[in-house]
């Protein structure tokens, strides 16, 4: 039974039961009216589906949530069960004498947390290595080596207290991991018989099934929104911590960005200042500068492409070029980044000379390539907007003796303008959030001061700094630099969110005119 109550087994069992329920439910519905189907309120297939839903949905939900809940439960039990008298948790008397009361409390809490982490790692290692490991040993070094040989991670030195706690935790986890599947199995069988019992001529299975389907649709439509809210929450908390530590205005209107290095446990520098300069302005400037160059490239090209494709191109040309443009939109941005780095950058440098352009990476390099990336985006969206201008507008204009180009510039573009502006704003928000091209082609200065005006100079952008800080020597998620990254992400989120909202409002306003 122990081995049966694992998640995959139970999931499979629930699904099999649901399928059986479908077939049997359908049959029973038919049988309940002796095959005289018009007597049934709902068709047999709805009764079948009703059994499926009642069997599978609650069970699968329980399985799903239990796999999260399980970890939380075992963690809280582990924390509650840690014996404070364990030698692992004690601070040596010699050190204790040197520390203040508050520091001792902090240290003890930290030590407890570390111990809990070690226990969890060890329990995972023991579970992963399987029963072949001899745990009834007092040679902890040998045990650690055995675990490592079995491919497991053992980070800290194993102590007797740690091993005991780990074994307890392992047993607890085994028991917990069966509770969820057991509940799920009971629910599945219960749901099966409950639904099966309700089958009959009067039962409105179709209405119930349709309500369930509506529930799924609502879930699907709100899922992405809920995820966005969750992301926002996850980014907001560290950002607020950062703002309160570094100062919101210092961040927003700081003109210097330089990471001092690891500042963990040393929140303040020698002069009472933060060692890292974390000003947002140079990053915002770099981001907007590159985005601006990208839009200068993308908007005219994309718009003219859209006008040509929708108004002038022959059907044959359009059939070739439109899919080709859309394929371009599917090229991964890292490929564009490489193109910028190895082709466009050196080419530009060769053209303007090394005095103006000391590096191949620059605003222009990243901007032009990003612009090329955005061309299909702009053209595709604008093409849709131009095509949605009613044919009656074209006829009306042509019927008055206007030429095709007069019709385009004086009637179609003004009518499509709000939609086109929406497309441009969306393109801008993509440019601002774009990462790979700028990481490769905009420059990787680790410290900047002020705003670089030279379009052939290197800049830093918000996204490149996020990548750089998170990739660098990790200093833990509580260092001021890492927190600053959250603040960057937070601000970036709001800038792009604002732009998208703006674009939506413009597009919505445009829609009102024709619907």
């Amino acid at each position, binding site marked *: 039974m122990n081995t049966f109550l694992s998640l995959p087994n139970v999931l499979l069992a629930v699904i099999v039961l649901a399928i059986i329920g479908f077939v049997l439910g359908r049959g029973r519905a038919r049988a309940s009216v002796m095959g005289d189907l018009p007597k049934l309120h709902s068709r047999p297939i709805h009764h079948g589906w009703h059994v499926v839903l009642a069997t599978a949905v609650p069970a699968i939900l329980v399985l799903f949530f239990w796999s999260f809940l399980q970890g939380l439960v075992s963690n809280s039990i582990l924390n509650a069960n840690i014996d404070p008298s364990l030698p692992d948790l004690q601070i040596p008397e010699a050190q204790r004498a040197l520390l203040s009361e508050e520091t001792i409390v902090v240290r003890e809490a930290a030590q407890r947390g570390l111990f809990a982490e070690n226990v969890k790692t060890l329990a995972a290692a023991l579970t992963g290595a399987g029963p072949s490991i001899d745990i009834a040993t007092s040679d902890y070094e040998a045990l650690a080596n055995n675990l490592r040989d079995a491919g497991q991670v053992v980070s800290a030195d194993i102590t007797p207290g740690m091993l005991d706690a780990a074994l307890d935790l392992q047993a607890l986890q085994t028991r917990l991991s069966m509770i969820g599947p057991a509940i799920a199995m009971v629910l599945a069988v219960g749901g099966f018989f409950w639904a099966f019992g309700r089958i009959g001529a009067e039962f409105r299975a179709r209405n119930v099934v349709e309500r369930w389907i509506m529930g799924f649709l609502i879930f699907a439509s709100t899922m992405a929104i809920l995820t966005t809210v969750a992301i926002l929450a996850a980014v907001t908390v560290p950002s607020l911590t950062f703002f309160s530590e570094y100062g919101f205005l210092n961040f927003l209107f700081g003109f210097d960005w330089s990471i001092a290095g690891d500042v963990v446990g040393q929140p303040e520098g020698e002069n009472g200042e933060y060692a890292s300069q974390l000003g947002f302005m140079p990053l915002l400037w770099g981001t907007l500068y590159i985005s601006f160059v990208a839009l200068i490239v993308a908007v005219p090209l994309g718009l003219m492409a859209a006008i040509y494709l929708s108004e002038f191109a*022959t*059907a044959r040309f359009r059939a070739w070029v439109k899919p080709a443009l859309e394929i371009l939109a599917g090229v991964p941005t890292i490929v564009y980044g490489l193109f910028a780095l190895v082709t466009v950058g050196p080419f530009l440098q060769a053209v303007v000379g090394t005095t103006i352009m000391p590096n191949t990476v620059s605003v222009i390099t990243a901007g032009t390539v990003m612009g090329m990336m955005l061309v299909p985006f702009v053209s595709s969206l604008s093409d849709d907007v131009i095509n949605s201008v*009613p044919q*009656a*507008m*074209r*006829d*009306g*204009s*042509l*019927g*008055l*003796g*206007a*030429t095709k180009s*007069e019709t385009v510039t*004086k*009637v179609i573009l*003004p*009518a499509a303008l709000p939609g086109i502006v929406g497309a441009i704003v969306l393109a801008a928000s993509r440019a601002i959030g774009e990462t790979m091209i700028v990481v490769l082609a905009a420059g990787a200065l680790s410290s900047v001061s002020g705003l670089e005006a030279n379009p052939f100079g290197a800049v830093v952008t918000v996204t490149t700094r996020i990548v750089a800080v998170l990739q660098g020597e990790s200093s833990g998620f509580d260092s001021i630099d890492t927190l600053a990254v959250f603040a960057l992400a937070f601000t970036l989120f709001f800038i792009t969110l604002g732009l998208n909202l703006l674009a939506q409002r413009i597009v919505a306003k445009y829609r009102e*005119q024709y619907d």
Partner: protein
Amino acid sequence: MKDTTETDRAMSTQNDVKISAKGVQVYYDKNQAIKDVDVEIEGRTVTAFIGPSGCGKSTFLRCLNRMNDTISICRVEGDILIDGEDIYDPRVDPVQLRAKVGMVFQKPNPFPKSIYDNVAYGPKIHGLAKSKADLDDIVEKALRRGAIWDEVKDRLHAPGTGLSGGQQQRLCIARAVATEPEVLLMDEPCSALDPIATAQVEELIDELRSDYTVVIVTHSMQQAARVSQKTAFFHLGNLVEYGDTDKIFTNPEDPRTESYISGRIG
């Protein structure tokens, strides 16, 4: 003898042939939509094209200002002469032609611009106004001609799309008139309008007859009887019968016309 001269004089002042079509064939790809149509449309007259759906009356109408050129699969053969000039001659620019032969469409299609700009659009393109005051005059004249001036004179800069359906259609007529065309083509101009708006537009069509040659496609036989002096009945791409409206409706020659008029086909 005296009678003849008077009739002749009447013919020469009022009823000159404005549009003359000979052997017109229209194809959409391989389907023939118009079969060998000959027709002579008189100047300063309202001519109605009637017939069941899909009989080719709108297609033929769109040949008269070469709007069919904008449909790539459409091919027109035969001769269509306006004032004796072949409009399908390679030397004729369809853009110039459409300034001379205005068109009003089935659904009112004002541009998403102000009322003023809707009317001023054509005159501006064709350079008819020398100054702003000149343009204001043209716009006012056209709106008066379209019998909508009194309703919109206080809100010339409000969007044309904000008017009611009947007002929009009269605005579109004013817009077509503003380019000073000689011929006005109307493709079921009242089919999207309610009876009151329809009556207003019909009254307007009758007034327009004094200055323009009007050709109107309509589904409504009553409308044809009310507004037109000449009627052409189309059926399956053929011009079945063409003559004075009174005669077509009271004493048709072709049995198909009679069946349609009396409601047995179509």
